[in-house]
Structures are given as structure tokens and as C-alpha cells.
């Protein structure tokens, strides 16, 4: 019964999150600049409706099936990833024993979806975007695995519900603050945003989106926002205690925390600059990946001594 409830809540959660993310995307720049926020609320609707009615472009000999399926796969992965997040105690769409592993599978298939989106256009700029994304997205995903294992250690379980319950004493953000930051970076990478937007950056004329227009562009935009919502909910669940909190009901706490992470991610995407791909790759492999190892060791030692 609670599972049915969770399955019904999931699309609403995703939809509300997409709307919030779209508005935030427009609201953050005027907020930083101290300007009026009035246009932020209507802007996304205007853009979405104009894209829905716009003409859909085509290239010479694209891989049509992959080109159409890639945004759909991307969006579906966002929904599947969200399905392991418990909305309230016991209310979870997919209560798997290996929930964290399912989330990991969604992460790695996201890289495939973004690559296919750029590759299947049969055009240079989308292809370069696709390759750059694979080069950065894969190691970014790799280090998130160590962060997630360190989050699963105190719970002694791979189930997301157990990970939330294990945070009753202390949230995982306190256990591994650097892991939280690394996971936020993964969030930027999964939703192709700001400093980790190597798939669709302006310097490649939009990268994988360089050759798409109209409804195809709208779908890709929605899929990116959906993944942003999904990764925000996951961050809130794994590091900020998910539905745990005093006084208010669990679902409200999850929404508040997800919203907070959403604001942080959109703001980070706006504020931080993007490194060139080769320097970013060095940073990830030489600094961030060892850092994620250290966090894992630190949590292990802490549990061994005081756990």
C-alpha cells in the first residue's frame, strides 16, 4: 500500500521539482545581481511553449533511433534513480536491498545516454561534447561510488532506507563533509551544469544540443532538470538525513532539504567557472579521487574505533 502511494507521489515530486528548478535557473542570476525576480516565473513557460511549437531540425544521416531515445533514457534514469529515495518512513517506490547500487547503475547509464545524444547527431560539435562528457563524467561517477560506499558503511546496508535510519544519531554530512561536496560535484556532472557541463557548453555552441531544436530541445532540457531534481533528492537523503527531522512530517523535511540542495546546485552552476577538460581530468584523477578514498578510510576507521 505504501509502495503504491510512493509510486503515485514520485511523478508529482519530479514534476514539482522540474518547475522549481526551471524557475531557480532563471531566478538565480537576477538574485545575484540584485534585480527583479518577476520575469523568472513566466520565463520558463514562455521558453517551453515556444520550443514545443518550434521546428525540429535534422542532420545528415543521424542515428535516428538513438537520437530520439537518448533524452527519453536520460529522463527515465532520473525517475528510476528517484525511485529508491524514501519520501517518508516506509514510503519508497523501490525498496531494494541494493538501492545504492541501482542509483550507481543510473549514474553510469546517464553517461551512456549523454554520449549517445551527442554521438547520434552525426555532427562534429555534439560529438566533441559527447567525448568530453565521457572523459569527465566517468571519473566523476567513479568517485561518487566511494562516497556512497562510505555512506553505506555506518548503515551496514546497501538499502537507502537503512542509510537514512542510520543517520538518526549523526548525519552523513558530518561524517564526511568532503564526500558531500564531491557528491554535489557529481550532481553538477549528472545534470550537465556549470563547472561540470562538458557535454553542452557554450564553447561548443551547445555541444550535444548544437543540432537539436524545437521539441527535441525541450525534451532534453526537461530531462536535465529531472536529473537535477533526482540527484538533489538523493543528496538530501544520503547526506542530510532524508525525511528525518523534528516536529514537521517526514515528507516536508525531505522536500525542504531537496529544495535546499537544488538551490545550492543551481547557484554553484551559476557562480563557479569551468576548467578546461584536460585540467579538470587531472584534478579529478589526481586530487578528488584520492580524496574520496581518504573519506572512505576515515569513515571506516571511525566506525572501527567508536562504531
Amino acid at each position: 500500500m505504501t509502495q503504491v502511494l510512493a509510486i503515485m507521489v514520485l511523478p508529482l515530486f519530479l514534476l514539482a521539482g522540474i518547475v522549481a528548478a526551471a524557475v531557480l535557473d532563471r531566478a538565480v542570476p537576477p538574485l545575484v545581481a540584485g534585480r527583479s525576480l518577476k520575469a523568472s516565473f513566466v520565463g520558463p513557460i514562455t521558453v517551453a511553449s515556444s520550443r514545443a511549437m518550434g521546428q525540429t531540425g535534422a542532420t545528415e544521416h543521424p542515428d535516428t533511433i538513438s537520437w530520439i531515445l537518448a533524452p527519453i533514457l536520460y529522463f527515465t534514469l532520473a525517475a528510476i534513480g528517484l525511485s529508491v529515495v524514501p519520501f517518508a518512513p516506509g514510503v519508497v517506490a523501490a525498496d531494494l536491498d541494493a538501492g545504492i547500487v541501482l542509483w550507481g547503475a543510473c549514474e553510469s547509464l546517464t553517461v551512456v545516454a549523454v554520449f549517445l545524444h551527442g554521438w547520434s547527431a552525426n555532427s562534429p560539435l555534439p560529438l566533441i561534447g559527447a567525448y568530453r562528457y565521457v572523459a569527465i563524467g566517468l571519473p566523476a561517477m567513479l568517485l561518487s561510488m566511494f562516497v556512497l560506499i562510505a555512506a553505506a558503511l555506518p548503515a551496514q546496508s546497501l538499502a537507502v532506507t537503512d542509510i537514512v535510519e542510520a543517520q538518526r544519531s549523526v548525519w552523513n554530512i558530518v561524517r564526511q563533509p568532503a564526500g558531500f561536496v564531491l557528491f554535489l560535484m557529481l550532481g553538477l556532472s549528472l545534470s550537465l551544469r556549470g563547472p561540470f557541463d562538458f557535454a553542452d557548453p557554450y564553447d561548443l555552441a551547445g555541444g550535444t544540443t548544437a543540432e537539436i531544436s524545437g521539441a527535441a530541445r525541450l525534451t532534453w532540457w526537461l530531462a536535465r532538470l529531472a536529473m537535477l531534481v533526482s540527484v538533489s533528492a538523493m543528496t538530501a537523503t544520503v547526506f542530510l538525513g532524508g525525511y528525518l527531522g523534528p516536529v514537521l512530517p517526514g515528507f516536508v523535511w525531505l522536500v525542504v532539504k531537496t529544495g535546499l540542495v537544488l538551490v545550492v546546485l543551481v547557484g554553484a552552476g551559476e557562480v563557479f567557472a569551468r576548467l578546461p577538460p584536460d585540467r579538470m581530468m587531472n584534478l579529478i584523477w589526481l586530487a578528488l579521487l584520492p580524496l574520496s578514498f581518504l573519506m572512505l578510510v576515515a569513515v571506516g576507521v571511525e566506525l572501527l574505533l567508536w562504531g
Partner: protein
Amino acid sequence: MGLIDLTFLVLSAIAIVSGWRVFATDSMVRASFLLLLSFTAVGLIILMLAAPYIGIATIFMMAVEMMVMALFMVMFMMNPAGLNPMMMVHQNRFAIGAGIVAFLGLSAAVLTTDFPTDPVDPGRQVIRDLGLEMLGPSMLIFETAGVTLLAAMVGAVVLSARTGRFGPSDEGSRPPGLEVGGEPAGRRVEKASGHGHHHMHDSHVGDEDAQHAEGNPEADGHNADGGESGRRPSLRSDWSAGNRSMTSKTEATS
């Protein structure tokens, strides 16, 4: 036939058809992702066999693996982007023979094996059992496999890194000789006949191009020809630049 049987049949069909399409497609990238689709269906079947960790981990690992495979195949093969049609099969006769033998052998194994009907108790903690098995009695096997794979990874990085076996990879490398210490194998690039003076000095490739365009009155006269003849020596100087840096490197080390 229940829902579970139907799901199994559909997943098996996906696995088999996409596995067949791997060999029928004409692109390396398509072949990789069709194989991924096949493995995903197999992973879901494993999930149905009450092995959630192994099932989902199969999908997870195969997604990364096929992505890396597609990337490296396109990188190392002379097929830009993997979109060009190319022949994906070879040794047809041997492959057909091996395929028939494998099919008959596996069919015989399936038909003659007496499979146990031993459903897993839903309350059993299979992931916990798997973890205890892997880090208990089977630890030696997994650690051996892990260290072997790590050694292979280090080897692959050493061979493909910029400071690799044949010198800096972005400066033009030479294949090893056919005999020990012999001339490099492969096609020899003939010396430039009319523009020999360009190789007299040790300037940068771009400088040579510029000087060529300046010093050649013909190039200034005819635009189309100028572009052509301006480009041709630069190819040669690329080679000589590579050779030069190689010799200077061997000199430095010896």
C-alpha cells in the same frame, strides 16, 4: 504461464536479438551499446533469480565497460566517430563452426543437466551472505583477481600515457625496428626534393610554413596552388619534427 514466465521470455528475447544484432550492425559504437542492451536484459534475469546485487551490478558495470570500450575502439581504430559503416566480422568460416559447436555443446548441457528447484527464501539476506562469502572463504580468489586486474590497468596506462613507450605521444612516434636496433618499420617518407632548404634549420613547424609562403614566388602568384604547395611540405616537416625530437631524446638519454 504467469507474469514471471512472460517477463523471463521477453528479457531472454531481448538478450538474444540484441546479441545477434551486435554482429549484424556496421558500427563499433552501435555494436557496443547493443551488447550493453543484451547484458542489461541478462542482468534483469539475474535480478529475477533473487540475486539483486549481482543483477544490478552487472548492469552498472556493463554500462561503464561498454562506454569505455566504445570510446577506446573509436579512438584506436581509423573510423571517425564510429558512424562510418565498416565490416564488423571476420574469419567467417571458423566463427560459424565455433558457433555451431558452442550452441550444440550448451544445448546438450542444458538438456542433460538436472536443474534444482530450490527457491530462495524471500526473508533471506542474500547480499549479506554474498558479502560474507566474498570476504570469507573466497577472499583469496577475489583478491587475486583484483590485483591482476589492477596490474593490467597500470600496464594499459603505462602503454597509452603521453610519456609512454615510444616517447611523447603527441610529437609523432616511430614504430620499433624489425630487427633489434634496426631501422624503424613502416613506410619511409621520402625527402622533399624541391624544398630541401627548409630542413636546413631547426625551426618550428609553423615557422617553416610561414617562411615557405614568403620565400616562394609561385605561391604568392597563384592562390590555389599556393595553398596546396604551402601545405605539402608542412606534412613532411611534421615527420621530420617528430624524428628530430626522437633523435634528441635518444641523445639525451644516452
